[in-house]
């Protein structure tokens, strides 16, 4: 009763009313929901960014490895002007016959009978195609064209949610520096 009286009289010392508390809790929760939404959005974007980075590392590594070997290798009778070749066989001066292909979304390199997977399980290579021109040779005669190999890749990160993945459609072309047959003509 005393409390009630003092409440009534000394107006400037009262606390928040129920409605005020409810409204402020409501406003606060709206703000928290908004911030929480932004935060989860940032997390999803961060996952996608990290996935893109993995794809970048793996595609650049695979392309670089292939390019270095193709540049010094003999590539004979592999022509595929329509880019439908999914396995590339080259003869490297040091490593011998090297074969590139994919299996289960991973790029594999076979050299000296040993198959090595050169990309990470985090990245799915849904396409590895080779476009090849200028590799027609007989024992002594070349086709008077420099061998060129186009490498086409489609890669994405393996994520549980499809919206976290980003598809990379890559293409590059590498030419051989091996001129022995052509210059011997």
């Amino acid at each position, binding site marked *: 009763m005393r409390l009630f009286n003092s*409440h*009534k*009289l000394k*107006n*400037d010392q*009262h606390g928040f*009313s129920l*409605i*005020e508390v409810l*409204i*402020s809790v409501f406003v606060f929760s709206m*703000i928290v929901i*908004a*911030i929480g939404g*932004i*935060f989860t*959005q*940032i997390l999803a*974007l*961060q996952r*996608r*960014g990290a*996935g*893109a*980075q993995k*794809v*970048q590392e793996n*595609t*650049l590594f695979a*392309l670089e490895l292939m390019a270095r070997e193709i540049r010094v290798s003999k590539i004979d009778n592999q022509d595929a*002007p*329509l*880019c*439908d070749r999914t396995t590339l066989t080259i003869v490297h001066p040091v490593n011998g016959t090297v074969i590139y292909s994919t299996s289960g979304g991973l790029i594999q390199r076979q050299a000296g009978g040993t198959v090595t997977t050169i990309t990470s399980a985090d990245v799915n290579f849904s*396409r590895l*195609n080779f*476009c090849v*021109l*200028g590799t027609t040779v007989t024992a002594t005669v*070349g086709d*008077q*064209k*420099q061998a*060129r190999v*186009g490498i*086409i890749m*489609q890669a994405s990160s393996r994520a549980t949610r499809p919206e976290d993945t*980003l598809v*990379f*459609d*890559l*293409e*590059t*072309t*590498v*030419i051989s520096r091996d*001129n022995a047959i*052509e*210059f011997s*003509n």
Partner: protein
Amino acid sequence: MNNQCNNRGFIRQNRAHKNMCFDSNGFTLVEALVALTILSVAIVPAYALSTSSVGIAYSIRNNVIAAGLAQEGIEVIRATRDSNWFVGSAFDTDLADGDYELQWDSIPPFSIYQDRFLYRGIQGKYRINPGSSSVQTIYKRKVSIQKISSVELMITSEILWTERNRSRSFKVESHLFDWK
């Protein structure tokens, strides 16, 4: 009078404040502004972070693709230089100064650069002309040849694209010599 003030809700307090009870004050304008400022200072970096991370994944992808396409431009010119040797021609035959557009299997004469987008067609192959089931990409590729001396060509391959309303480019340069 006090009673009235106490029973009034939060929302109507402003009016109450004005008319009757000076002590049962709500927030002042300044207080509200300060609170809003603090809130926006907290939210703006979070938002900036989120928008910049939208861009990161895409710019990684676009850069990786552009790097491959740029390299391809250089290699095609190099293949032409080598093929010129094989048939006994001068190393710079069909490689006159100018800007060209090309694709992986291009052979001379190359078509003149027309500021066109590349297309991606069957087998994921990038091409200069639209074909069956091809889609337009965001990339343009300009391959420039400049003869520096009688034994040296400078080749630049530039990939141009637009990313989030900003134009981006990736450029590589290579020098080809007549060393045979």
